[in-house]
């Protein structure tokens, strides 16, 4: 605490020589950090008003709130992992959709040897993709978007070559009824008949990954690497490993997402996970993480995920069709990012 005292004293010593940081006080900091939750609260208030006006029903019920979280839990799982890639300054991991599909399909295939071998094989596959990305991007500095797009395609090709247009079903392949049931429950198990397992995964991941990003050596080094790779390397950070690790984390959460999606759909197929790449980027960016790297937080990304959930829920209750929802979501996405970029610039920071 001694440190903060000195810090405050120092701020008093330099009275108002520059508008930018002297106004950047603790209150402002809290607001800036909570910015995305303020937006979420706005959506919540909008929902409540709409309900009060009688336009929509059953918005503010415990069940509906649970539904909202439940609906976005898988997106949350994938997004908080991919957030590490964004944070490291490498935009996004476009290989996530087929990583999800591949790990899911491998798990189903391996259920013939039992549940645990299935999970182990899926994790191994996810890890392999993560490591391939880690080497190509971390070590050889391949362009992250193009490289992961290519990996996405290769993986898709592998799935379709090996399981030639076949869909495989867990209950038909599993070694035992038990294995099949457990696999089924990866998605379906509910605590107190209410809280779904994916929500629990998401919450655990948020807590764990937030800790890793903010409170560990890796997290702090990742921040500096994301903000300035070269300077980080010249500060004694093993940037190749740090960047590589962020892709591995992303692949592993995608594996969990893949298992969950496959458990939900009860079929291993190449299209499981389709669209999760862009959905995750949307959540990450709405959550205040900028593509420039080194800025944002896992808690913010969770906020972005929840906003998407609230938005979808309100629109569904309003009777807006799924497709129109896409349209509105795209527009809101651009608007939110535009506002964020502008506020960063007026704060004297660089572009988003």
């Amino acid at each position: 605490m001694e440190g903060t005292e000195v810090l405050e004293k120092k701020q008093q010593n330099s009275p108002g020589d520059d508008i930018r940081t002297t106004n950047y006080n603790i209150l402002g900091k809290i607001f800036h950090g909570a910015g995305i939750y303020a937006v979420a609260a706005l959506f919540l208030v909008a929902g409540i008003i709409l309900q009060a006006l009688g336009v929509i029903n059953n918005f503010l019920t415990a069940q509906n709130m649970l539904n909202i979280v439940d609906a976005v839990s898988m997106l949350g799982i994938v997004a908080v992992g991919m957030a590490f890639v964004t944070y490291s300054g490498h935009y996004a991991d476009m290989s996530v959709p087929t990583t999800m599909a591949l790990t899911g399909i491998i798990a189903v295939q391996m259920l013939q040897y039992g549940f645990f071998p299935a999970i182990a094989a899926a994790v191994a596959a996810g890890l392999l993709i993560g490591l391939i990305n880690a080497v190509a991007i971390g070590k050889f500095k391949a362009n992250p978007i193009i490289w992961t797009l290519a990996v996405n395609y290769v993986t898709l090709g592998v799935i379709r070559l090996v399981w030639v247009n076949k869909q495989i079903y867990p209950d038909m392949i599993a070694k035992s009824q038990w294995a099949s049931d457990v696999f089924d429950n990866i998605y379906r198990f509910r605590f107190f008949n209410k809280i779904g397992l994916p929500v629990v995964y998401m919450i655990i991941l948020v807590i764990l990954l937030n800790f890793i990003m903010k409170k560990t050596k890796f997290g702090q080094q990742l921040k500096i690497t994301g903000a300035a790779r070269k300077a980080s390397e010249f500060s004694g950070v093993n940037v190749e490993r740090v960047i590589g690790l962020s892709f591995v984390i992303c692949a592993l959460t995608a594996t969990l997402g893949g298992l969950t999606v496959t458990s939900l759909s009860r079929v291993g197929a190449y299209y499981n996970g389709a669209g999760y790449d862009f959905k995750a980027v949307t959540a990450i960016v709405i959550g205040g993480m900028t593509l420039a790297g080194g800025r944002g937080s896992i808690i913010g990304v969770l906020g972005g995920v929840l906003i998407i959930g609230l938005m979808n829920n309100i629109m569904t209750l309003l009777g807006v069709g799924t497709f129109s929802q896409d349209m509105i979501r795209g527009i809101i996405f651009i608007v939110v990012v535009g506002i964020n970029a502008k506020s960063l610039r007026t704060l004297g920071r660089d572009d988003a």
Partner: protein
Amino acid sequence: MNSNDIGIALSMQGVSKRFPGTLAVDNVDFDVRAGEVHALIGENGAGKSTLMKIIAGSFNDYTGKIFIGSRETELHSPVHSKKNGIEMIYQELSLALPLSISENVLVGRLPKKGIFLDKEKIYKETKRCLKMVGMEHLDPDIEIEEISQHESQLVEIGKALGNNPCILVMDEPTSALSREEVERLFEIIRSLKKRGLAIIYISHHLPEIFEIADRVTVMRDGKKIDTRDIGSVTSEELVQMMVGQTVKDFYHHESHAQSEQRLRVENLSRYGFFHNVSFEAYKGEVLGICGLSGAGRSELARVLVGLDDRNGGRVFLDDKEIKPKNMAHALKEGIAYLTENRKTEGLALRLNVKENILAGIIPELVYRGVYHEADGFPKMNELIDELSIYPPDPERIVGNLSGGNQQKVLLAKWMACDPKVLILDEPTRGVDIGAKMTIHESIEQLAKNGSTIILISSDLPELVSLSNRVLIMRQGHLIHEMEHSGCSEESVLLAANGEGIC
């Protein structure tokens, strides 16, 4: 000196430019005559870069009047400036790397025949521009990324000259040039002067100014202090005007070298960069390394800290052989390296002072797997005080600090690591005199505390006065060693140029 005084080429009256929170240029009157070199000097943050950018047309919201000849003009965009015959040569390279030399040289004015480009004319015109800087042997069709940095710098100068400017603004044009190339550049400047060009020359390097300028204007805190004929001013006076107070001769030397050996390098090589370099350094010693740019000084440093692989040789630290694989490893062993490229390799400009200073000691602040940032605060605050980083606010974004303060933050990062051997590569390049003095004091202090400092610098007075010994590198070889007592600026410089040694 102004025998060929033809008239005023450009004059500014009461020009000001405000940034959020500061008045960067404050009511400045400035003029430059045709056929003269007018030097503009001042510490970093004095406003000379901003003044130059106003002339370049980078701002459309300055106040005050600007006259080209006798006609009042508004320089609100780069196009306006170009139309008025103003050309700029920037300190940092402003060429497009993936594009060819000719496209860079003729950017915005590629000759056309009808609607299509005139290839023949492009070739000829590029050659003409290159010839002005003695670079006519370059093929106009190869890309900038294929030529060396020195060549690029000269190509850039050729690009500016090719536009037949009436007014030429040069911002530290010699910072990336070798001594021979500087001589060539000065030849060019003299001939341009004869042709009646008005040249504004910005530099930190006072000897250069005395060599090339006719008049000199000093700026401080956004204001013009004075304009003087070069013949009627001494360098002490100029320094005094820049700093605003009398400076004592701040180059004083105190040896803290101990007899205990700290570092021993045996036959170290990185093929193509430097070969068979051997030397040793002692505790508390400041070991200078001098050489022209490209002599292999920075490359040697990079191998010592594991940033590049070596091809042969051995390195001993406290009599224990070390083979750092990367910088993290070298830091653990106790060797740190302060890079010469502050902005690209040194600092994370988008992060704040705190995060930058603590960047090197993140592993030290980890306790049971958890990163305790606050544990580093006492040390950080101490360093902010010691180096008088201004403003002393750890939350300030580094990119918004002045150059001198950025450099102090960079130095603070390495002082926080408390290394056994600290390699400083151009620690005071492009910083103002105040910051320079602070940095020199810190170097002395570090040596006094027993650290070994390897000082790589092109600033000869700095090198000569701070170092216990000076090693001379030339073209990838270590060719000479000089004791403090035996070196002067001249002798070191001659040695670095391969002269004066039998």
